């Protein structure tokens, strides 16, 4: 155990030291090969130009290398593997995709993912917006925001345990220690095994993500709301607009761009949701989603890389429109820089 701590500290020192040594050394080396100081005239200009050509690549080099190994190459490789058999050796054409759309579990996952996509981003954004508007009006709003924001720091697994405890089921007549069943029985209902009710269990899982992500939406939207000019709101009040009109007709349109950002960010998160489903149901009772199904196929029966890759590609296809939109937005903003 001590050796583990020691090696971790060593890695930090070696890693950081290595980075510093690389950047400093590469920079020095460049200065030595193409000296700009100590030479005169055309040679100095020439060397400066050469330095200018090379130095940026020294700076972005390590990042680029890691990005290529860990993200760019895998994306291409995953695409290739999706046309290969389980070991990734033989070309099978579209067989994996054919399998996917014929597979009951896969179709169930797609369906569930669509429900997740329809519910979670909308619920988070809506609740986040409401809470942002409300907390802006009261003196203890900051504390309230902190508490609602807090689940964002909790891991999905931790959150799953927290909610599993809420959904805990005991047989009828026993003391319910899960708060949801306690409330239901107190109101005269009978206790339910919430996470095993097909279709509706999806919603009980979604609640967890909504609980986590509403704080995120709230913080971003709250800061956007503060950006609305005071005069605009005052003018609306003077014109006799009621609070609902102000909310829907003044505030929401003003922060439309931010709402879109929040929505898309949560959408991407929903597509990747894996931990919650794995820990709560592991896809049982028809609650499977693509990300968990993909993980499952990576290891099921020794692993089927072809099918796993195919599911990853399907997730990616859903992300691509957002990706293009993001790049366009960024280009618009940094166009002049």
């Amino acid at each position, binding site marked *: 155990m001590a050796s583990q701590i020691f090696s971790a500290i060593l890695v930090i020192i070696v890693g950081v030291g290595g980075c510093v040594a690389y950047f400093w050394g590469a920079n020095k080396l460049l200065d030595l090969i193409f000296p700009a100081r100590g030479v005169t005239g055309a040679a100095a200009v020439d060397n400066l130009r050469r330095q200018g050509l090379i130095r940026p690549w020294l700076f972005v080099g390590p990042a680029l290398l890691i990005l290529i190994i860990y993200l760019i190459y895998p994306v291409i490789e995953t695409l290739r593997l999706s046309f290969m058999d389980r070991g990734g050796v033989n070309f099978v054409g579209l067989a994996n995709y054919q399998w996917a759309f014929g597979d009951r579990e896969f179709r169930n996952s797609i369906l569930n993912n669509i429900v997740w996509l329809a519910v979670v981003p909308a619920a988070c954004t809506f609740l986040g917006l409401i809470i942002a508007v409300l907390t802006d009006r009261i003196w203890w709003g900051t504390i309230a925001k902190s*508490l609602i924001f807090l689940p964002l720091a909790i891991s999905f697994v931790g959150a799953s345990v927290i909610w599993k405890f809420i959904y805990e089921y005991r047989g009828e007549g026993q*003391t319910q220690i899960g708060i949801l069943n306690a409330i239901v029985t107190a109101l005269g209902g009978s206790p339910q095994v919430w996470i095993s009710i097909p279709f509706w269990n999806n919603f009980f899982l979604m609640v967890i993500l909504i609980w986590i992500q509403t704080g995120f939406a709230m913080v971003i939207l709250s800061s956007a709301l503060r950006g609305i000019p005071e005069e605009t709101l005052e003018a609306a009040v003077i014109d006799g607009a009621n609070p609902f009109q102000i909310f829907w007709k003044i505030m929401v349109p003003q922060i439309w761009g931010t709402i879109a950002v929040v929505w898309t960010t949560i959408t991407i998160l929903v597509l990747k949701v894996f931990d919650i489903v794995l820990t709560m149901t592991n896809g049982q009772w028809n609650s499977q989603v693509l990300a968990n199904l993909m993980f499952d196929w990576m290891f099921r029966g020794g692993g089927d890389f072809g099918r796993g890759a195919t599911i990853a590609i399907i997730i990616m296809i859903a992300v691509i429109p957002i990706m293009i939109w993001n790049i366009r937005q960024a280009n618009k903003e940094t166009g002049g820089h």
Partner: protein
Amino acid sequence: MAVASGKSFISRFGVHLAVLFFVVLWTIPTLGILVSSLRDKDQIIASGWWNSFSSSSQTEAGRLPDASAQAEKDGKFVIEGNLFEEGGPARQISAFGLRAAAPTQYEAGAVADLKDGVTLQINKDGSFVMASPKAFEGERGQRVYFAASAPPKFTTDNYRTVLFSEGIGRSFLNSLTVTIPATVIPILIAAFAAYALAWMRFPGRALLIAVIIGLLVVPLQMSLIPLLKLYNGVGVFFGVPVKTYLGIWLAHTGFGLPFAIYLLRSYIAGLPREIMESARIDGASDFEIFVKIVLPLSFPVLASFAIFQFLWVWNDLLVAMVFLGTEADQIVLTAKLNALLGSRGGDWEILTTSAFVTIIVPLIVFFSLQRYFVRGLLAGSVKGG
């Protein structure tokens, strides 16, 4: 805000009430496991955690003293005593029984008829009298069952158990081992790249920025299978273990880089041009400008990123499950918690306590550095989004 002014007392009261409602709704789940983790494990299953401050009723089993404790009184043989330990917490018996199937057959204070004229009376305070016309025999005392109220009992035993005998303590260390290097390493690499992308001119720069923004949203799932294959290949080729801390440090570095570069670049690009230019006129090279001017000025955004990366790595389950083993020396907190959910399914004292141990570090980081966290969140999603 102007909207709120001039509104009636009732509607302002409504706002407070609505916010209170949301706050309670959002806090209760976490409060539930915190309270439960501090409760006695028998009480956790005996009553809901929201009742943990009032006495709970538990059904228990006990055995009366054997025949050697009997005394002769008025021609009867009697065994007397108390079910509760002397000096223990004040408890009350509500009912008792003689069979496990009917543990609450008799009210406290009632007299139960056993066979052959034997009677047993158990009172509220735990005292009992068993009487028989014949002498008691045998070495085993009478088995009794009773429902007793127990006063609220809070303990830190659960924490001791999970930390030292359930392996959570070790996993805590493993999580730290993964998280700290995986947070520190990307920062420097990203900072240099971000500076180059913000302030240096070179062909392909715009394309590189577009690629990085694209990579921001690429699902992790796209990388897993090729990297698993790559790691396996490297492991076989060099004869080294496939699942290592080095492997996961690099993986987290790779997955964190697009966001790091994106966040740092947008901040560094916003630094005032005059500072850079006057430094350049003074003869400073790009390297010097970066180290002496840009890095110190970028501290807030570096802190923001560090918090993000720390939370993300600490809370990650997927990457850890793919790139690390499940043995005690490698399993991280999230993976351990997931494993406990399978192996200790109904043991809520273990689960709630373990869960709280896993979330305590993020909560501390979050509360102490919330300012940087929020700033990073805003910069990361609003600006370029």
